[in-house]
Each structure stands twice: as structure tokens, then as C-alpha cells.
């Protein structure tokens, strides 16, 4: 039986909760370390190590470096671990100063100046983006038998119909409640980025009537390119499907939080952004 471990760095445990729901592994893989559900002081040697959360404290970094040495295969699981996730919102100058000033406490792990994805410090064999990745995706990682099939982008998994003659003039609010069933959210004026976001999640958000916020990050087409290409791709979709002025789309895409790119834009932007080869991303 293959042995696997889950190392949780600074994060929300959503990835772990999702993994627990993928209960098909329960009798087929041996979970030897995962502090959320197993009492074990130390991580033994494992075949697969899933790392969730970002590197936020010196303790995170210490744990990460120690764990990867005992792992056959290292998987960055979840958007925080892959590209920084929601923690990137703390990397705006005005915000960073605020919270570092307040976080100076005794006897607790020291905060690093910035939260980082794990590939800043260790080699990663496989990236599993998603906030959180679905149970199906977790199973695909554990099995690693190539049977998992997904569409390239969320859009292809959504099932809503795109209409030619329904062209909104303006974006509706992000949180407007009224959603027509079965019709593409872009036709209804929502800023949905499912057209450029990596598929594989089976589109739970747009199916439920909420625009895709891009938590799985860029699709294979875009993942090795700079973030501007990502913007351009989304704007092209809105240009062909709507009559919404381009400035409006631009402004909405660039609010830091929705950061549509969601929470991970900062990490892909500019020269600092690490390129993650698409072969390594599930």
C-alpha cells in the first residue's frame, strides 16, 4: 500500500477537508502523517507528500525543508501552495507594513516578510491548483495512472449556453443575486473568467450561478506566459460576447482582491513570476 503524508503550512485546511471527502483513498493508501486527522509527531518516509498552504513563517519553512527530504514525490496541493493564493493580498506595500508591525509577538513562529509558494524553496514534482482542489482532483493525484481526463478550461465544463444575441452593455455587480439558469454568465454581464481558467474542477461555481474567479489559475495555453497574456485573453472573450467598454473590464480585472486571478496574479505577474511547466500541472 502506498504511503502518503499531508504537510499543512499556513493555510485554511480547505484542501485537507476536500481530501477527506475523497474517501476512495481510505482503504487503498496509507495516510501516515496529517496533523489535522492523525496524531503523529513526525513525518516518516513516504511515497507521496502533499503540501498545502503557503510558506508564511520560519516554522513553515523548517517543516517544509525537513519533509521533502523524506518524500518520493512532492505535490504542491492547492492554490496557496502552488502560487501563493489569498495570502498574496498581504503583499501590497500598504498592507504588508500594517501587519508585520502587529505580528511582532513573543514565543510564536516568526513571520517571514512575505508569504511564498513552496517552489520558491523546494523542487515540486506536481502542481495541483484549486481553492481547494476537488476530491476528484486529489484522487487523480494519488492514483497518478493517467485516467483522469479534464477539459482545457472551466468554460468547457460549465454547461451553460452561450447566446449570440444577448450582449450586455455593462458589467453587473459581482454579487447580484438574480441569475438566469442555463445561460452563460458572460451573456448576463458577470465577470466570469472561466474562459481562461484551467479546467478539471467540473465548474461548480458557474454551474451554481456564480462567476468563475479563476482559483485553478491559468490554463495550459497561458500558464507559461506572462500575466498580461491572461488579461488579453479574457478581454478578447468579452469583446466578442459583450458590448461592455474595455476600460470597465480592465478596471474590474485589476481590483487587487478579486485579483481575479485570483489571489495568484501577484505571483504570475512580471519577471518575478515563476514559470510552471504545464506538464507538471494537473
Amino acid at each position, binding site marked *: 500500500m502506498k504511503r502518503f503524508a499531508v504537510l499543512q503550512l499556513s493555510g485554511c485546511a480547505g484542501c485537507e477537508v476536500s481530501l477527506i471527502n475523497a474517501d476512495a483513498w481510505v482503504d487503498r493508501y496509507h495516510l501516515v502523517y496529517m496533523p489535522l*486527522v492523525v496524531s503523529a509527531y513526525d513525518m516518516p518516509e513516504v511515497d507521496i507528500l502533499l503540501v498545502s498552504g503557503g510558506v508564511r513563517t520560519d516554522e513553515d519553512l523548517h517543516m517544509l525543508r525537513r519533509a521533502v527530504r523524506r518524500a518520493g514525490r512532492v505535490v504542491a496541493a492547492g492554490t496557496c501552495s502552488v502560487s501563493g493564493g489569498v495570502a498574496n493580498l498581504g503583499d501590497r506595500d*500598504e498592507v504588508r507594513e500594517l501587519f508585520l508591525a502587529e505580528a511582532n509577538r513573543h514565543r510564536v513562529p516568526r513571520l517571514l516578510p512575505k508569504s511564498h509558494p513552496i517552489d520558491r524553496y523546494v523542487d515540486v514534482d506536481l502542481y495541483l491548483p484549486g481553492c*481547494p482542489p476537488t476530491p476528484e482532483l486529489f484522487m487523480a493525484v494519488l492514483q497518478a495512472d493517467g485516467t483522469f481526463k479534464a477539459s482545457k478550461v472551466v468554460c468547457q465544463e460549465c454547461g451553460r449556453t452561450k447566446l449570440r444575441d444577448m450582449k450586455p452593455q455593462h458589467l453587473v455587480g459581482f454579487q447580484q443575486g438574480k441569475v438566469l439558469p442555463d445561460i452563460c454568465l458572460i451573456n448576463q454581464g458577470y465577470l466570469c473568467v472561466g474562459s481562461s481558467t484551467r479546467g478539471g474542477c467540473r465548474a461548480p461555481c458557474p454551474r451554481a450561478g456564480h462567476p468563475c474567479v479563476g482559483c485553478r489559475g491559468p490554463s495550459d495555453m497561458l500558464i507559461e506566459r506572462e500575466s498580461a497574456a491572461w488579461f488579453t485573453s479574457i478581454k478578447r472573450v468579452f469583446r466578442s460576447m459583450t458590448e461592455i467598454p474595455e476600460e470597465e473590464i480592465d478596471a474590474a480585472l485589476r481590483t487587487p482582491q478579486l485579483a481575479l486571478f485570483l489571489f495568484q496574479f501577484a505571483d504570475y505577474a512580471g519577471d518575478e513570476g515563476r514559470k510552471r511547466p504545464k506538464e507538471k500541472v494537473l
Partner: protein
Amino acid sequence: MATIMIPLSRVEGHARVVIEVRHGEVVDAYFQATEFRGFEYFVLDAPAEQMPVIVPRICGVCSTAHHVASVKALEDIYGVEPPPVALQIRELLMLGQLLQNQATSLFIFTMPDRLGIDSIFELDDSPASGGEITRIKTRALQVRQVGTHLITLAGGQFIHPIKAVIGGVTSGIPAEAAETMYQELQWALPIAMDLVDYYWESSLAMGERLGTWGDDAPACYIASVEAVRPNYYGEVIRVFGCEEGDVCAVFPPSRYREFLTMEPSDYSYAGQTSFHGQVMRANSLARANLVRDLGTPRANEYLRRFHTAFGRPAHAIMLFDLARGIELVYAIERAMQLLEMPLDEPETSVPYRPRDGEGFGLVEAPRGPLIHHYRVEDGKIASAKFVIPTVHNLLAIERALRVAAKRYVKPDRVELELEAAVGRVVRAFDPCIACATH
């Protein structure tokens, strides 16, 4: 002075317990939350309407509670009243959260303490091992998963849900989907009750073996449910059981600062809350001490048994665990009641006009009253405070830890039971560190 440090597992998030000992005497015991992300800062300048998507990321275990509290805070600012069907669907969301959380706490976090194992996942349910008789692992995961299905149905996805929106919910629940969910809950109910009975008995046996259930001293309690037919959707907060009388305060979320004293801690990334200096307890035992009638037959039967056996108010800390079992049954039964109502209305939300201001969103999360407090200027978040139920419990947790530490730290030695005792104490309160530090 010697320091004993005990890392914690089978709780949500990163924390440890530190016990300070001088000349064989326990000087103090601390609960240290060791992670910090900074959500109150992340959200500054966020367009207010994005909050219901950002803040669930505070915690993957409690994301539903944050999602709903966030929407309620914004509705408070905008002056929006969602239609009744939206409130029913949001109640279903909270019930799914309750079901999932209590199943996780009961079976994944604390059942191993009853069975003397490290993890429920090491149980072998196969016929060859004889494990097919109890099948605890399989059945526990099944019950827990029903809760996640309920959240998915009402919230779009079971972690970081998205269906609650300002003014209502994105869509209703078609009759067919409601019927399927109803049947799943109906199937799960006897399994859940069976597991709760087993858990109840093994807890009593453990209590007998240990002689005491930990910190049994009276405390005051805080909850935001009603005494009759509680609704975890949250209206007002009650503090009760303190020295001055039965109910010591009733207040809306907007007045929390008048009643709750919140102080930061220099040895932990989580602060601490008191009721004017008095230790408070939130979570399942607070609700079990308050509620007289759950409004569902089987859960009421468990509640009656609980009150008869342990009195009211009851104070032994491991009763938090048993009270979670009552709520597990309640969540299933109440969700079935709601699913029998029509939830497929065409209008599931009302229009709203955004405006600036200050607002408060309260829900009774599994761990107690959760408040989101926002100030919006120019459509953006100018300040956000997250008032977290686990933080209400931290003084009570430390008080209970001191009791446990004094029992097992002897002048000449530290008894091995200390570590297990610390784990049992902390898990009874089911703290959520990701939420507490946010």
C-alpha cells in the same frame, strides 16, 4: 523553571500547549496559536461585494459560516431583507456546516481518544479483521459526507461556498434535488444515531476510567440561538449562567464591544475574549445548556437524556463532545424538515443598492457566535473585524488546561497521561486556529 511543550493534533490549525513548571508545581498553562495570515489586512480596500468570496478562505472547515456572516454584514449595511426562501436555503447551508463539523469533531478528532488510537483512518473495517461489526470509520465518513453534500446543494460547493449573495441566494433548490437530499439524510439518520450512541457510551466509560471529566467549575456561556427551536442563522447574542443571574446579557451583534472584552495576547497569534473579565464558554455545551426544545423529535430525546443525566447548566468539559452528538442528530432532522418545504421559488433574491456604512453579520457557527463587522467607504472595505467564537473560548481552554496540568504534573515526575489529557481538553472545545488567528 521548566517548560513542557505539547504540540496539538486532531484540531483545526496550528497550535500547541505550553505548561510552565517551577519546583514541580504548575505555574501556568498557555494555549499558543502559532499561525497568522492577516485577513483583516488582506481585505482592506476590497470592493465590498467581493467579501463573501474572499472571507470563506479564512477557514476551509468553517467557510460556510464566514460566507453567510459576510453576506449578512453587507445586507446590514445596504439595508436589504432577503426573501424567506433565501433564508431557508441559508439555514440549510448552516445545517450542512453543523452536520459536517460535528461529525468531523466527533468521529475524526475525538473518537480516536475513546478507542486509544492515533487516527480513525487506521481502523480496519474489513470482515477479515472483524471490523465489519462496528464499521466506525466507514460509517463516520459517510455521515460526514452527507453534511458536505448538503452544503454543496445549498451553497454550490462544500468548501468556500458561493450561493449566498447580497439580497438572497443565486438560485432555489429544485424539488427533485431536494427529494434526493432528503432521502440521503433519511438514510444517514439511523447511522448517525447509532454512532452517537456508541460515542456516548464510550465517552461515559472513558469518564469513569479517568475519574473526572476535567474542568468542572461553573462558567458563563455565550450563544446566539433561541432556547426554543434554535436557528443557527443567528439573531441576538446571549450570555448566561454568570454570577448575577440566569441570563446576564442579551445584545444584537452591533453592540458586541459593550459586552465582550477582547484583548490581544503576546504569546499567541489569537486574542482572548471575556465577558467583563469573566471566563466564557461558547460552542455545543453553551447551546445544550440554553436550549429547551430543539423542535425535532429524536434530537429532543437526546437533549432530554443529556439534561436528566448531567443537569442544566452542566459544566464538565467533555460534555461539549456529547452535546455535539445531539446537534449532529438535530442537523439531520432539521434539514429534512426544511427540504420538505418548497425551495424552488423563481425569486430567490431581491435587488439592492450599495451604499456606504457600518454593518454586522452574525451567525451561530458550530463553535459559537461569529460576527463579521465591516465599515464600507466609497464601496470599499475601510475596516473589517472578525469576531471569532474560538477566541471566546480561549480563556476557558487555558483554565481547563491548568486543571489538567496540575493533575498530572507531580513534584517528582510528569505522568504520561498529561499529553492525552491536554489533547482531550483542547479537543472538547474543538478550537479552530485558522479562524481564531485569521
